[in-house]
């Protein structure tokens, strides 16, 4: 459990993990704390935080902001985790194939990757979601499709250095098959940077999803933080709390994910960890 000790040495990462645990807990307990649908009108509109027992106030239609945040946490976390998983599977497989085989396979895959990288992320995302009509599946897939290229590059880079290592050569000499060498020998050694960038990618996915919902391209049946901000932006001057609290939720979650990612990076690469961070 050397790894946990190294991770715990980074105070920011522990704080981030704690915040993240809080968000996850909130998401899990949302149906218990707020049994009613967050779309339901719970009281009069424009109640300030604290008024009439609404901790975070109510929105333009009288829906409970706190309930929205709790249920939004579910949607946001689920969307960002699944879309990162999609990005991971595309990125790892393409990167591994390119890095392992090299030569023209590598050229082909990398040109394909660059094709995606030359199109601005968010614009491609908007186009994809608009084409496939906004739904939870299309959003998850689209976020996955726009965010895999950096992962593929990382995995490819790791494979390029690892494939010439002697233990990989030994596997060739033993006559192991290519899939075994890729997944059994090389991939486990290439995972640390992948885990780190995946944790940061979750943060990006949160932001992408929020931005989509803000623009009204989210799944219309799902309450999400981005949607709440988007819906409240017209009344921000006289009802700040409706957009403020979801904004804080996004900021805290993204910050926590980044801190955890950095902590993972330090803990997984102890030699690269910055010195003097006692």
């Amino acid at each position, binding site marked *: 459990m050397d790894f946990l000790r190294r991770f715990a040495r980074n105070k920011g990462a522990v704080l981030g993990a704690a915040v993240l645990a809080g968000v996850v807990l909130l998401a899990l307990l949302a149906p218990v704390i707020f049994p009613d649908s967050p779309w339901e009108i719970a009281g009069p509109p424009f109640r300030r935080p604290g008024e009439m027992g609404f901790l975070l106030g109510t929105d333009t239609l009288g829906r409970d902001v706190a309930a929205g945040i709790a249920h939004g946490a579910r949607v946001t976390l689920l969307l960002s985790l699944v879309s990162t998983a999609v990005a991971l599977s595309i990125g790892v497989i393409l990167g591994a194939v390119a890095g392992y085989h090299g030569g023209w396979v590598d050229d082909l895959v990398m040109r394909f990757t660059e094709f995606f990288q030359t199109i601005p992320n968010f614009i491609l995302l908007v186009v994809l979601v608009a084409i496939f009509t906004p739904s939870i599946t299309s959003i998850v897939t689209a976020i996955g499709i726009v965010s895999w290229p950096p992962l593929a590059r990382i995995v490819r880079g790791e494979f390029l250095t690892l494939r010439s*290592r*002697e*233990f990989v*050569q*030994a*596997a*060739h*000499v*033993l*006559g*192991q*098959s290519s899939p*075994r060498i890729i997944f*059994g*020998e090389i991939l*486990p*050694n290439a995972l640390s940077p992948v885990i780190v960038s995946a944790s940061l990618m979750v943060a990006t996915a949160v932001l992408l999803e929020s931005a989509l919902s803000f623009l009204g391209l989210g799944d219309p049946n799902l309450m999400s933080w981005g949607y709440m901000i988007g819906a409240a932006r017209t009344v921000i001057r006289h009802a700040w709390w409706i957009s403020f609290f979801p904004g804080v939720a996004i900021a805290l979650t993204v910050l926590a994910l980044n801190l955890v990612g950095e902590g993972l990076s330090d803990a997984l690469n102890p030699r690269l960890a910055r010195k003097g961070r006692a």
Partner: protein
Amino acid sequence: MSGAPLLAIESLTIALPAGAERAHAVEGISLTLARNEILCIVGESGSGKSMTAHAIMGLLPQPHVRATAGRILYQGEDLLAATPARLRALRGHKLGMIFQEPMTALHPIMRIEAQIAEVIQQHAPLDRAALRDRVTALLLSVGLPDPERLRRAYPHRLSGGQRQRVMIAMALALEPDILVADEPTTALDVTTQAQILALIRDIQAARQMGVLLITHDFGVVAEVADRVAVMQHGRIVELGPVDQILEAPQHPYTQSLIAAVPRLMAVPKPRAAEAGVVLEAEGVTKTFRQRSWIPGRGTEVAAVKAVSLSLHRGETIGLVGESGSGKSTFARCVVRLLEADGGAIRLDGTDIVPLGRRAMRPFRQRIQMVFQDPYASLNPRRLVGDIIAAGPLAHGIARAEAERRTTELLALVGLDPAASSRYPHEFSGGQRQRIGLARALAMQPGILVADEPVSALDVSVQAQVLALLADVRARFDLAMLFITHDLRVAAQVCDRVAVMYRGEIVELRPTAELFADPRHPYVRELLAAVPGKRWLPAVAG
């Protein structure tokens, strides 16, 4: 070797950070270095010899590692108590240092002239014309040809030996009193090593410097040392004049170290009766091509040019050569890690060069390889047992049988069977090399290709692994292709030696014959360059 000492280390102790293997890298060592002498500090890895050198230069990786007791006196001044500014003034000016790795010790994007000039400008600024003359003179003095052209070159245009000469020129730029050389020739080929050692000795004598040379190689000691300090586990176990240490070592550790030094004498072996040929290479050629998008701009390097040899059952052929001679490339063609461009490689009569990946698989079992780097050749994320069993499993052998072989082989290579449920990082370099050997043997091969299997190991461990290889070879009647850059090691294990030079075998003869009467001029040069050849370990045998 007279007068007050130039440098005196008095009961120096260097503490390691908590959680390190031991509490002190160096514990209470004392030694002196006089003007005009070469003192060699010898020891195996982890003995604290490099730490001592770094402490003198004020280069310890503080604050994690620092000197906690003792003094380092340079002409009476304690270097450990000196301010950073004072140390800066001394370093490069009065104290010069040469590092082990010439490939990384030079600034990669700075011209040679600028790097040397920097040292001079830092301490004793000169005007441009004088500076230029000084740099030219320095480059000439370290035996670099064509200094006019070299001055403007970047480090990557230079060979390892040339870079080490530049490093020496930098260290000598201001004629320091003391030169600290940390394994200055370890990364170099044997002929280059001989030249660099001669250069250090000549310059030392000409300038009456005190040289502190750190090395692990008793051959180097025999070549240059006036006095020797032997270090073990952070302590000096023996200190004395070179003749006394080499000829009549007192301490048991020194004796065992010297006994482990491979000798440059062919060990007479019972000549294997003319057995069948198991591996035959005929005109094997390998050319590396760097393709370019611009037609005609690609480069070609012929790494192996028409190499032929035949290996008999139970025979060991040594492939000896310097870096870039093509010996490793040839070995990799033989085990099909690289595709040969031409020629034939016959395993029991079948040419394996044209075989596809699938057709090659059955032949994989017959020829196995042991790799050079014990730290890179085992997958750090897999258990030792899985590493050894992976080969048999890949060839459809039942798990129970694979595990039985694993246990058997671990015992055979001298490891505890419990080792199979541990990870490679829990083992030392020598133990890892045993695991690598067990992995190869698990396939029950008839031929073993060993690519520098002992060159990353300390001499005492080296001797053990060589003994194990000899044992295994006799037990399984293995044929072995043994690649090494070290003629002394080749002499110990090989029946025949093939010397490779620029992609070709220039001489292939029985070991004793080749050493007694080398015919090719390059082989003669190589034999002459072996460090410490005039000295035979007194307690050997």
